[in-house]
């Protein structure tokens, strides 16, 4: 006799864990399965865990702003659960968006106004007052150090920044997923690790359950794909699901660097999160007074779409495996080195290489599927970490409504955000949508 649950959530990362949590709160008997050894150990572990509001669409801004409220109120969100590993900490550094040709910052400003995001407009002097180590010349367009023009002298200045006092990062993304797991368990959710899904069983257009690598079969009428970079593999296992998606997902390799802050500059305690489209870098403080340097994926940089299993096994060779490359180390550190001329760049690359679960338009798919009972929270493409608790609430509401008979494809579910009070048309995240050309097509979302 197979074990039976109300819902099986595939993936116990920062997206899967809150969905299990919210479903459990609704009374669903859930089982989360993950091929890793513990919660948040997949691509969640490699997340920069940035919490910021600037997105290219108004709904994106609203969604992220809603997310803040959860991070600010973390213990309450977890219903004061005790995690033996301690609680992840949200570090509210404030968030600077440099006004540049690399971002449609005017649109972001309009979205801030529409959503009611608190922000200030800073001129260059105000930016320097807060971040004295910056050189505010314009370096646009973004180039690579292999290109001799990378070293050209700049002659124009930037035009200030938008500053959100609410914004920052979570200090330990793995721990945050673990915290949510403990909160979910307190509501009756079950988590199973070292459990790899090898088959999605279905019959008569309805999902039946999963088969694991060890042959075990577990049944449930609801399945949720939160497999991160493996999401496309899971979708392909489920009858008709992959074919029924107009927007597909795949795994994109991504490097993030750690570079020591300039001497005499206490970036860890006094620094801000900063998004800088002019050099296609975003930065935030990291333990050890480091700059964590992420890339905004400029067109000139290579994009490597990889097989996640090969990648995590260290296969694929230079630039495709899970090791930092010297070229990208130089690209990201030198770009930031132009903005922060006193930044010391060590010879040895240090950082993290992980995968994005990336959709065709870099906007996630939060949706049902063409297979009854099969849902997906996929394509979270490096910019949904901050939204994860809201995604949990939204997906649980969506699943519950669909299971009670809603035809979400015909009448898209309307999700009410509990803090901002805004209503979000979940059809925005539909798998059937056309590519959203308002998207930044980057990590900016």
């Amino acid at each position, binding site marked *: 006799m197979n074990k039976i649950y109300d819902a099986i959530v595939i993936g116990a990362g920062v997206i899967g864990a809150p969905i299990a949590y919210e479903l459990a709160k609704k009374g669903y008997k859930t089982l989360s399965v993950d091929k890793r050894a513990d919660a948040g150990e997949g691509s969640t572990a490699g997340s920069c865990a940035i919490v910021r509001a600037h997105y290219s669409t108004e709904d994106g801004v609203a969604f992220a702003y809603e997310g803040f409220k959860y991070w600010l109120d973390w213990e309450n969100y977890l219903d004061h659960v005790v995690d033996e590993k301690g609680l992840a900490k949200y570090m509210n550094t404030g968030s600077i968006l440099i006004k540049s040709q690399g971002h449609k910052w005017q649109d972001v400003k309009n979205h801030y106004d529409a959503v009611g995001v608190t922000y200030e407009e800073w001129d260059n002097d105000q930016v320097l007052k807060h971040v004295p180590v910056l050189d505010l010349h314009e370096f646009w367009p973004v180039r690579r150090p292999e290109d001799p023009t990378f070293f050209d002298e700049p002659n124009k200045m930037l035009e200030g920044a938008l500053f959100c006092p609410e914004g920052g990062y979570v200090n330990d993304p793995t721990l945050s997923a673990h915290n949510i797991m403990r909160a979910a368990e307190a509501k009756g959710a079950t988590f199973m690790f070292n459990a790899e899904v090898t088959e999605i069983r279905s019959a008569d257009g309805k999902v039946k359950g999963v088969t694991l690598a060890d042959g075990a079969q577990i049944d449930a009428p609801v399945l949720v794909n939160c497999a991160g970079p493996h999401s496309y593999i899971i979708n392909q296992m489920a009858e008709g699901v992959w074919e029924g998606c107009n927007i597909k997902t795949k795994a994109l390799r991504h490097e993030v660097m750690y570079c*020591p802050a300039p001497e005499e500059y206490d970036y860890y305690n006094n620094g801000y999160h900063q998004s800088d489209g002019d050099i296609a870098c975003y930065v935030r403080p990291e333990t050890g007074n480091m700059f964590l340097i992420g890339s905004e994926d400029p067109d000139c940089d290579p994009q490597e779409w990889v097989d996640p299993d090969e990648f995590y096994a260290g296969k694929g060779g*230079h630039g495709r495996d899970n*090791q930092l490359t*010297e070229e990208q*180390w130089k690209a990201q550190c030198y770009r930031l*080195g132009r903005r922060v*001329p006193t*930044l010391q*760049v060590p010879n040895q*690359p240090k950082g993290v290489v992980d995968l994005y679960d990336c959709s065709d338009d870099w906007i996630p798919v939060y949706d049902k599927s063409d297979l009854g009972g099969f849902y997906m929270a996929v394509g979270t493409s490096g910019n949904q970490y901050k939204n994860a608790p809201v995604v949990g609430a939204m997906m649980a509401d969506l699943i519950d409504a669909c299971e009670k008979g809603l035809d979400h494809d015909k009448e898209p579910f309307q999700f009410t955000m509990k803090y901002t009070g805004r209503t979000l048309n979940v059809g925005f995240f539909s798998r059937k949508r056309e590519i959203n050309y308002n998207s930044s097509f980057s990590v900016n979302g």
Partner: protein
Amino acid sequence: MKIYVCVKHVPDSAATITVKGKTEIEEGITFLMNPYDEHAVTEASRLKKIFPESEIIVVCFSKPEAEGTLRSALAMGADRGILVASGHRHDPIMTAIVLKKAISQDGQPDLILTGRESIDSEGMQTMFRLAHLFKIPAATNVVQIETRDNDVLVSCEKEAGAREMLKLGMPCVLAAGKGLNNPRYPTFPDIVKARKKEIKIIDFEKLDIPKPESRLELVCLEPALEKRTPKEITGTTTSIAEQIVSILKDEARVI
């Protein structure tokens, strides 16, 4: 003062090393300046601040790709570089002969700095061989250098906690240990300046060096599997702290 710094182009210690064939490794990984040599370059740069008339010349005997490592040294404060390029790997005997020739052709050294070892072959002999060829004194694992009129006073770390003070006539070869300094890494403006600095490339074949009478040959490379045996430390906070101190003192001998 003419300061020559010998640097080696080595695989990144964080890279996954894969053995290819019997004596080669997969080279599609990051190569960079040997970390001990970073201390040597940093020290040369510090000495130049004291003696501004000094010139720092970095010398490397390696594959042509090592130009990147020389460029790093130039960004860290060296004035110019010399690369003796060869398509093959050579033993420490040949390396010392080549470095001696490259330095002698270039000028009269007052000081030759190296790292105390390279992290790839860990031979720890090139600096002594080089000193022998020049017939000058050498000291290794140097953690402090004080230059005087015609000699240098150096502190060398022997084993954990023990230091030896040596006086060496100049010129001499000093091999930098980790405790010598904190490497000063380049800023972007340093990197820009380094792009314009001169690197002289010498073809090893054209040096026409006769084969030494004897040589050291790498027969086989085998991947080492590291065995770790974690040990749980239990007890009260005080007792845990005491146990850690005793391990660091008696077992690891680092304090």
